[in-house]
């Protein structure tokens, strides 16, 4: 069975794009529409990695990271930010919260897969 990756974005289009790319590479995918939805779905099936947007309603990407890192079971799960924000201050905020990596949109599918492969091995 392939590794399972959660994609978190309030845009259905982005979730669909990411999901399509990951499934094509053999990964299982769980979709969540914001940070709050993601935290709820984390308690379902085992997740090997989270790819999340930054700006989302209800709970944003930083809040999600803090929520995940606060749970002992998911303390070390890789979390990649996939966002349009490229400012160093934002990246630093993500890193401080516990983000593993940062991909700035626009992205190419192969770029996303290369990062995942590097992180998940």
């Amino acid at each position, binding site marked *: 069975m392939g590794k399972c990756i959660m994609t978190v974005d309030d845009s259905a*289009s982005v979730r669909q794009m990411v999901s*399509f790319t990951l499934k094509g590479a053999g990964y299982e995918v769980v979709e969540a529409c914001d940070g709050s939805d993601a935290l709820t779905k984390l308690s379902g099936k085992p997740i090997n990695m989270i790819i999340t947007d930054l700006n989302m309603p209800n709970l944003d990407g930083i809040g999600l990271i803090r929520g995940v890192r606060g749970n002992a079971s998911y303390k070390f799960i890789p979390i990649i930010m996939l966002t349009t924000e*490229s*400012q160093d201050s934002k990246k630093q905020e993500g890193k401080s919260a516990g983000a593993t990596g940062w991909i*700035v*949109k626009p992205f190419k599918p192969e770029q996303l897969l290369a990062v995942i492969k590097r992180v998940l091995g």
Partner: protein
Amino acid sequence: MDVKYINPFIAAAQTVFKSMLAIDAKMGKPIIKNKGVASGDVTGIMGLVGDRKGTLCISFHERGALFVFKTLVGDECDKLCPEVVDAIGELTNIISGQARKEFEQAGVNLSAAIPMVVVGKNTEMNFITAIPIISLPFSFSVNNGDHETMYLDFSFE
């Protein structure tokens, strides 16, 4: 308007089209608009604030929007359904993000608001800046060799 405030938008539009859609978008002749009216049938709108302030609009006619949706997401829609509207909103968000990155490299720091999308022909829009609005048309090839246009309209001060 100084070209240093126009070039980041041009670079952003072409970079995003190339990266996300694998399409070369060719810029046509810019026009000056003296009325805040949407250029196409579906329009993503993003406010920009920071060292400067302005509004960015990304607008498509229906056929162009449907083609972009199909290319971006892989699904087909035959009308401007919520999924297509979402995709145009996200494309606006990504072009805005790339433009902000280009501006940052030129020493201009900007932040973006949440994008919104309006659907309808000749929709009136109030830009947060004074007119005129600069409209940059980008032509791209669709399925059968026909061309569609993405309009990048902005005002900036």
